[in-house]
């Protein structure tokens, strides 16, 4: 595991720039791997400890059980022989001899002994015989004494042997019809009869028990534990040994038991490798599970961090695009979290910038246009004024006072109109121009209209864009009045730090359809007359004071029009026009 981490670190190190994702992955892995490894190691050590001790106990118990089973066989056989031995000690049976009995009473004795032997037989007993020195025997008539030498231990049993001699395990093949090799495995015990006064001195009691079950248990034990089982008697003779080569080693796990009845030693050796096999399995399982969990954690961390970082990266990409000037760029808002908020504010910021840039663009363009127009108009005001003054002079000479007056007023109006050096002029000046214009109209139509001005003197010093009111008045005469007849009211009031101008007439009014389109920007392209003045005035206010200002035109067709303008109060600078340049 540590190796893996190191390699991961090496792999990540060369690039000085480490992405958030990498950092995420690394921290995720560290956070998951540490508890995982400690848990895994803990559970492995605990369970391995438990298993090893359990298996050790199991083995010990199994050997103890083998010992118990074997001893139950041995004890029973031992007791049986002792019963027979005791029976034979009775002097009443002294007549039992080495030769086949032929008299009635001998046969009765023989039958009694044989019924004892038969009674001592259990399900497991395969044979109980008393074999005399001559070869005659007592017991069931199925024994072929000459075949007894087939029992390996019978052969090696010393003649001087007195008392019990355990023959161990061997195939029973000494029956009358038995062949040499086929026979069920039995456990045998031979007891030499050695009582000076009793019957059958020098005979041997042979008892055999079916050992299939016992050997099967040994086999089960061997298969179960994979241990090597060996039974020795007290003199070191091998009674039983697991088939197959086995080299004992000092590292072997050894379970040892000694059978009390005859001193047999049951020894079970298990190579250390086999003993620790189950804990090895646990270890490999634990490693597999831990590795799988790490991979899972890595995968999930990768997924999660990529979900997380992909949004950051998207935002970063969007910022980059914006920095390249692509202001229409917006980033997708995915979730309501901190990143989402970031996305939203980014979008808001970009759209704010975009609007601002648009506005600046617009105003720059209009300014340029105005300048161009101004150049155009500025070409020859002197020519116009000189000419007009000449006409005025001629009219005075000819006594045409009306014409001279008209020209005088027109010149005044035009002066205001053509003086483009100042964009903003005091309200008073604008009002004077209006009065000159109204004089012209009065001369033209006669005193058929009324003009009511309501404006406090102190307000006249505030600035208003040049030539904004004159076109509106012109509209009144051209569109509103018929033959100059009507009433015009102009009211200028203070409204906080704003000025409010209300221009009302009782002329024809503006049709509703036209009114709607009146202030729309594209009206410039409109053919025909009317509304151009309103449009211009509106633009001027917006350009000078901001888009929220402008004209508010209310009109009822046939009853008149009211135009309301509001703009911030602004005084002329002592140094000149506040809006110079």
């Amino acid at each position, binding site marked *: 595991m540590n190796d893996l981490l190191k390699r991961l670190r090496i792999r990540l190190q060369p690039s000085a720039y480490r992405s958030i994702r990498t950092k995420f992955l690394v921290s995720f892995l560290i956070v998951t791997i540490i508890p*995982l490894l400690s848990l895994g190691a803990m559970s492995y050590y605990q369970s391995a400890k438990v298993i090893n001790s359990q298996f050790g106990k199991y083995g010990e118990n199994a050997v103890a059980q083998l010992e118990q089973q074997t001893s139950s066989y041995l004890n029973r056989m031992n007791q049986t022989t002792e019963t027979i031995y005791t029976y034979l000690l009775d002097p009443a049976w002294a007549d039992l001899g080495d030769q086949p009995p032929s008299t009635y009473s001998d046969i009765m004795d023989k039958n009694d002994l044989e019924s004892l032997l038969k009674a001592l037989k259990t399900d497991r007993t395969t044979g109980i015989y008393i074999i005399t020195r001559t070869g005659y025997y007592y017991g069931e*008539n199925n024994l072929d004494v000459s075949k007894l030498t087939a029992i390996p231990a019978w052969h090696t049993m010393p003649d001087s042997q007195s008392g019990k001699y355990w023959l161990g395990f061997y195939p029973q093949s000494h029956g009358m019809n038995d062949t040499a090799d086929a026979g069920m495995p039995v456990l045998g015990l031979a007891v030499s009869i050695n009582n000076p006064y009793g019957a059958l001195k020098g005979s041997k009691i042979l008892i055999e028990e079916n050992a299939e079950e016992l050997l099967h248990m040994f086999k089960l034990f061997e298969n179960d534990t994979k241990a090597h089982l060996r039974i020795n008697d007290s003199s070191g003779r091998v009674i039983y040994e697991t088939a197959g080569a086995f080299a004992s080693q000092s590292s072997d796990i050894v379970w040892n038991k000694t059978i009390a009845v005859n001193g047999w030693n049951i020894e079970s050796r298990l190579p250390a490798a086999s003993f620790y096999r189950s804990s090895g399995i646990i270890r490999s399982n634990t490693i597999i*599970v831990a590795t799988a969990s790490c991979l899972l954690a890595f995968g999930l961390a990768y997924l999660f961090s990529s979900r997380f970082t992909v949004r950051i990266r998207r935002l970063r990409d969007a910022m980059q695009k914006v920095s390249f000037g692509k202001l229409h760029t917006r980033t997708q808002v995915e979730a309501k979290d901190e990143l989402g908020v970031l996305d939203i504010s980014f979008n808001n910021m970009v759209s704010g910038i975009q609007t601002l840039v648009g506005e600046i663009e617009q105003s720059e363009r209009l300014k340029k246009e105005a300048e161009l127009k101004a150049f155009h108009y500025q070409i020859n005001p002197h020519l116009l004024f000189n000419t007009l003054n000449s006409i005025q002079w001629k009219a005075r000479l000819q006594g045409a006072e009306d014409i001279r007056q008209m020209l005088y007023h027109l010149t005044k109006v035009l002066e205001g109109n053509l003086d483009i050096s100042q964009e903003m002029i005091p309200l008073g000046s604008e009002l004077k121009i209006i009065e000159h214009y109204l004089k012209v109209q009065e001369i033209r139509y006669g005193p058929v209209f009324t003009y009511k001005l309501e404006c406090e003197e102190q307000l006249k010093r505030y600035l208003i864009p040049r030539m904004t009111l004159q076109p509106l008045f012109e509209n009144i005469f051209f569109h509103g009045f018929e033959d100059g007849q009507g009433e015009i009211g102009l009211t200028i009031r203070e409204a906080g730090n704003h000025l409010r101008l209300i221009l009302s007439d009782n002329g024809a009014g503006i049709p509703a359809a036209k009114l709607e389109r009146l202030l729309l920007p594209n009206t410039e392209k409109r053919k025909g007359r009317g509304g151009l003045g309103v449009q211009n005035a509106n633009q001027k206010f917006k350009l000078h004071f901001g888009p929220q200002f402008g004209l508010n035109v209310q009109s009822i067709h046939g009853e008149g029009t009211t135009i309301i303008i509001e703009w911030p109060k602004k005084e002329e600078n002592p140094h000149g026009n506040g809006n110079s340049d």
Partner: protein
Amino acid sequence: MKKKLTFILLTTVVSMAALTACGGNNESSGGNSAQSAGGKGSADVKKLRFATWDTGDALKIEQDIAKKFEADHPGTQVQVEAYADGFDQKLAAGFGATNPPDVMYMWDFPTYHRSLEPLNSYADGDKDLNKDDFYSGLFNYATIENNLYGIPAGFTTRVVYYNKKMFDDAGIAYPKDGWTWDDFQSAAQKLTDKSKKQYGFGVRAENDTYDLQGFVWSNGGSYISDDGKTIDGFMNSKETAGAIQMFGDMLKNGSAVLTGGKGQQSGEDIFKGGKIAMWESGIWPLESFKQAGIDVGTVEMPAFPGKPVKGVVAESALSIAKDSKQKELAWEFIKYYVSSEAIKMRVADLPVRVSVVSELKKDQDPLYKPYYTMLERSDNTPAFLLNDKWNEVNRQLSAAVEAVVHGSNAQDALNQAVKDSERYLK
């Protein structure tokens, strides 16, 4: 941050669950497999236990019959329990624990009849059984105090087997029905050739006294008085002793060999080996003799001069245990077991039904005819049916017979046996 924490927690929990699940599996797997072994009880299958003393081929035939019965009676299972040599021991244990087999082979009715179900009500008037088709007298063996405790399933009488080839080699005519023990003994003398370890006759070292009754009766003797109360003067009578002494004499003069004793082969094996020319037995070894390739002949028992030949029947019957919980089914099984179909399957016994015998013409087959001739001669009542203490008496009688074949004088041995047995009759 919150999300991250949840994630880590989740990973840890998942991995822990995986670890613990792994450990849990190992533990539980052992328990499961142990449980599955117990499993389904067969509530709807009726199990019938049938105990037999037979082994080998005879047992195989009985298992086949049981299978046929199962096929005819769906939902039943017949468990054939082969007790073999331990028959008496295991049966007694079963009765003692009130857990006996439902149906069992039976011959020793005096000993066991208290544990058996009386079958009169089943057998009388049962048309399937048809009592009248059975050889008369077979039912007597299974009747105690007028109660029928078993249905005869098979029987045999005893005949003399002879090896035709050995007779031919010795130039002796084959024995014929109506021959005498003198004929028998002189033939045995001639058939004996000790240099070839070849003998005219084989005598069992340990005889079943029951089987010897035929000879005793033929010589006009008996083991016990007809009322079953007295043995003195019967068991040790001149006739009884004479019949038994005859076998001892044949052994002494070398025309017969002792068989089946310690270190000795059984008589059947020696006969199969062609080393004894005559052998006395029931029908049981006939098949094995044929299989061993012996050209075997049968003849009825020889007669003592001037006396009628008598035979003894060895009968096996089927009985139902009193403690059986399925007596009806057990009765069905018995009826099937003694039906013609099942009888024909059982070749180790002689058919108990007259109809089967005449159908198979067994009584006309020279090899089988002597068994039926002997059956006609078997009208004496065996000793064990006359006294219920016979088993005790028999121990002494057996020892006496054994002493005789081992060289003792029959009269002396029997006198002693009578003396020792008297106390059981009081």
